[in-house]
């Protein structure tokens, strides 16, 4: 509160790169910053730096649609994201920065009986793992979101929904800044505009990181570079089973808020929420092809506008203000690739698809533990890169042909 009257620096200005750090984190997004923070806070590992090629939070952390939820299909996923949501719930207080996490409820709509079965399955898994989620019918949906048309009029009438009360939205940039501030306070060096250009390797380990600002020797490396993870891993001589796709979203001009819950329709491939500023924030499916091109597509705007109006005809005259793209790293089973790799001291947080932001705090906690102790926490063991060698995948996909 006192910061209101006296402006206080959030973090130190960028300093010189030291010759060596115990841990070099590549990527100044929510995952990298959270990992650095928990390394310093929980394990006393403070000789840590963050190398970020642009400004902090410039990648997926600042481009996602800010939805937080834990109602995943697999037990592994539900347990992992369940812990993430619990961390998020107290993060504002822990970091002393209001992340504006509003758990106003998350509804995944079902427009077919097949979808309803998938919801049922998720709800059952969630309940067993202590994640609050249940299948509700049109009447309950209407009570939670009276603006939604639950009649038979739409082409795809709403048959039910997976209701996840703890789900909601958060201020994504605030998460990045709060972790950055806290990490910086504990002595972590944050180096924005410092691009990794290569790794020096010896004996199956990374010995130093090359950047556009010089060379840094390192004890361990954590790569948390959604979108570029295959390129960074490639520099370390590692191949990840990941394809990179763009995901697009848009906001409307600010309107007086009326939509409190988060509405998702996988049939119509849109998710809709309304921010505390009043903008409707609408996102879609990833594009099916691989690209790094950030200019986006018109067809995305057209299709998601059509689908948004299918759900909310009252948005017909609302105006699109701004659209943007982000990069998503897709793994074959839609679950992350987290932890150790074949390169001894090179750890990854990647393959998050569209789910990465939801996992930031728990990734920080678990990855920090791994880096500090050398032991992979049970919670993330199923997400090891090794699973693609042993073929023990963790499928978040319900059916081969149907995406999330």
């Amino acid at each position, binding site marked *: 509160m006192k910061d209101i009257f006296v*402006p206080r*620096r959030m973090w130190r200005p960028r300093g010189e790169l030291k010759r060596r750090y115990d841990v070099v984190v590549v990527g100044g997004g929510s995952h990298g910053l959270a990992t650095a923070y928990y390394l310093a806070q929980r394990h006393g590992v403070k000789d840590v730096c963050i190398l970020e090629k642009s400004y902090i*939070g410039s990648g997926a952390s600042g481009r996602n649609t800010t939805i937080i939820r834990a109602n995943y299909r697999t037990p592994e996923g539900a347990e992992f994201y369940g812990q993430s949501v619990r961390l998020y719930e107290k993060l504002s207080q822990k970091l002393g920065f209001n992340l504006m996490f509003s758990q106003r409820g998350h509804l995944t709509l079902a427009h077919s009986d097949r979808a309803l079965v998938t919801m049922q399955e998720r709800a059952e898994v969630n309940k067993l793992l202590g994640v609050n989620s249940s299948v509700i019918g049109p009447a309950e949906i209407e009570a939670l979101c009276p603006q939604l048309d639950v009649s038979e009029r739409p082409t795809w009438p709403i048959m039910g929904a997976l209701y996840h009360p703890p789900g909601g939205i958060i201020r994504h*940039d605030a998460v990045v800044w709060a972790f950055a501030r806290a990490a910086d306070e504990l002595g972590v060096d944050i180096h924005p505009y410092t691009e990794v250009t290569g790794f020096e390797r010896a004996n199956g380990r990374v010995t130093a990181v090359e950047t556009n600002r010089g060379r840094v020797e390192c004890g361990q490396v954590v790569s948390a570079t959604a979108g570029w993870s295959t390129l960074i891993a490639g520099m370390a001589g590692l191949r990840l089973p990941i394809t990179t796709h763009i995901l697009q979203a848009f906001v409307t*001009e600010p309107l007086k808020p009326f939509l409190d819950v988060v509405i998702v329709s996988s049939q119509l491939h849109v998710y809709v929420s309304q921010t505390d500023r009043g903008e409707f924030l609408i996102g879609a499916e990833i594009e099916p092809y691989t690209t790094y091109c950030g200019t986006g597509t018109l067809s995305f705007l*057209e299709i998601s*506008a*059509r689908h948004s109006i299918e759900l909310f005809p009252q948005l017909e*005259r609302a105006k699109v203000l701004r659209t943007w793209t982000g990069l998503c790293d897709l793994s074959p089973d839609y679950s992350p690739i987290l932890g150790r790799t074949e390169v001894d001291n090179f750890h990854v947080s990647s393959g998050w698809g569209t789910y990465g932001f939801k996992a930031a705090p728990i990734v920080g906690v678990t990855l920090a533990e791994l880096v500090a102790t050398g032991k992979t926490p049970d919670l993330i063991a199923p997400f090891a890169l090794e699973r693609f060698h042993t073929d023990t995948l963790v499928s978040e996909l319900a059916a*081969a042909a149907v995406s999330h």
Partner: protein
Amino acid sequence: MRLPAQTGERIDRSTELSFRLGPWDVSGYAGDTIGSALFAGGRRVFSRSFKYHRPRGLLCCAGHCPNCLMTVDGVPNVRVCVEPLREGAVVEPQNVLGKLDFDLLRVVDKVGGPFTPVGFYYRTMIRPRRMWPLYEKFLRNVAGLGKLDEHAGHTRRYDVEHKKARVLVVGGGRAGRAAALEAASQGPGVVLVDESDRLLRSELAGVEVLAPARALGIWEGNLVPVDCGTVLYRFRAERVVVATGTIEQPLVFPGNDLVGTMFPRAVRRLIRDFSLQPGQRAVVLATDERGLEAADDLGEAGVAVERVVDLRESPLRRIEAQARAGRVRGVLLDDDVVECDLLVASGGRQPAYSLLAQAGGLVEFDPDLGVLVPTEHPPGVEAVGSVTGEGLEKVDPLPSYHGRGKCFVCVCEDVTTKDVKRAITEGFDSIELAKRYTTVTMGPCQGKLCQLPSVRLYAQERRVYETDIGSTTARPPWAPVELGLLAGRHLEPTRRTSLHFRHEETGARMMWAGPWRRPYAYSDYPEQEVRAVHESLGVIDVSTLGKLLVEGPEAAALLERLYPNRFGDMKPGRIRYGVLTTDGGRIMDDGTVARLSDDLYYVTTTSTGSDAVTAWFEWWNAVWGYDADIVNVTGALAALNLAGPRAREALERLTEDDVSAEALKYLDAREVEVVGVPCLTLRIGFVGELGYELHFPSPAGEHVWDRLVAEGAVPFGLEPQRVLRLEKGHVIVGQDTDSESNLLSAGMSWLPKLDKDDFVGKSAVELFAEREERELLVGFRMEENVVPPEGAQVVIEGYPAGRVTSARRSDEVGAIIGLAWVPSDRAEDGTRFEIRVERQLRGARVTHGAFFDPAGERMRS
């Protein structure tokens, strides 16, 4: 009050239009905008600002700034300064608690300042945690601008039109017109898009003019959508010429948002277009020649020009607009107070580069001009005129002027210079970070009015050159666009079979099955339809099955390599069940494959899988280069499954061909003429009874159906079919299997032939064969009379260990039966396991083999 008629005025004084502002009747002339008509009627306050609820009046009169956002005929956030006036329009103020001239939330401006600096919400309302929902409720109550009718339905019809242009010129200013004429002299196919409707089309011979219209962006391949109100033109242009000109920029001084502050061109528009006197006593602050022209305009309109300051010659340090009730009443110029009610000020003109930048062009600060200019254009895109910086004078105002009061960098978001300075102090030292923290450039103007001022301020505060600051990424669209327009005609594709209307007439309850509409059942008692199939005869429309013809000398080789099982050794006239596997050896789709001749196969797929399977076949065929053609005949053919003990007898009455048990054996495929229609008849048994799948041209659908029904076949829907197939333990791909299921875990280990040279996914299937599966798909019977919902969990020690994928009550079996994934050590026949149903654990036992007619005698009979 209007001025005497001006030459070239746009209003038609002979046609008066009346409209409403809230409860008041107001009027204007044809040719007015809503904004000009309201101004003529004496209205000066048009809106209340986003955060501080400060009164705001006309500023740019060009549709850029947020100051005139109002709700018109229920549509929020309309820029009334450019919205044409129409008879009967209903205009309402927005973001106001109380009245436009007396907004109760103005209190935020009066006392909120010290408590609500930039990002205050990040520092406050943190504890206690439980209070946040309440705080947030308050925040949401005051957030947002316009209000949508929460329960409105579709109100408008929109259309999309695809067009081509050789040259598409955006902007009808001097440079744009010249470029259009130049291009037109070389041939047809030239289109010019302009936001205003003032262009003289006669001067643009050979050019197609779209106005008023707005190019929204330039996407890859020079795809330019043009907003024409209710029609979206999707242009593909060989060349795009951007001639969007410039946008007037605010001068940053305390009180620069007060009602009565205007840009020079706004003043000119009010005077020349609408014959309005913008004020009585004016002060003009100019940074370029254009700014000075305002003084002449004002003089002509009879406004007393109290002071003209050319900031290039007589620079000031202190400019402070002084207010009475939110309106300009004077201005302090260094130490000199000049009384006025109109303050015309501008910080120069900024090239309107957004379209170019959005399309991938580069933008840099030009120190010679003092503005941001586009430096590198995307391929196929050119820029002409002042948008390139051409013809601009250097402008060099102070990034901010001293004085008391709030000094706005961004009027959309109420961001003051103090906020920006504070952000820098706090460490948000890159312009992109500061954008996210202060929200500068994120408001309705999308940076049109605040990008340049914030760059100038940043450079000053960080003591670096503007060239080192960069700019925030320009994002489409160029101007806000209605969702309805982007959506176009509201069409959601629906697939219906040729029997769709027959089903509806018969009283079927239709449901979605993938992209198809299918009958769920024909009454509320699907079990009766099940019984009919078991006891007598039923017919189901299976036209939704994907149907492919694979033909050619190497058709057999292609299928051999696509499927894990064998098709090359089949005799013509025989059928085999096939399952497709992915590269990873997972189950992808299933169906039957009939060999019709040596070179011709007829393949069916699941109803939702036909497109994916077609693409899959074509992909691999292209990779391998086989001499085989693939034709998707899904829509061309109807398909009916006639099933039940009476099926043969019924078929015999409808055909003269021999369909006896000897002539048409189980898994035989023959052409049979049924009621005069040549039908490819497949003898298969998905539902477990004697059955014939008739595939024939779609147009004959109702004819064949009607005759089968007349023979006593009871129509049955998807639900009875699901029960029937479950009794046989037949798997539905996508329901009983997921993206991880493989042939071995799904109980079809007999299917893959690992001695084949190759097939898609073979190495993975070989791996599966060597290891133990984690989980297996098994049949089960419930111990109690409870039907577990599909998706219910198999629970071991409180942890999810498997799941039910299908479950139904079967009268025929006399039990509740289903399919479930269970851990492989619990998959033995008779093993008991527990399923969680409505919070209770219910027992079930693994059952191997089909529940009904395990030997398959009935379907083979």
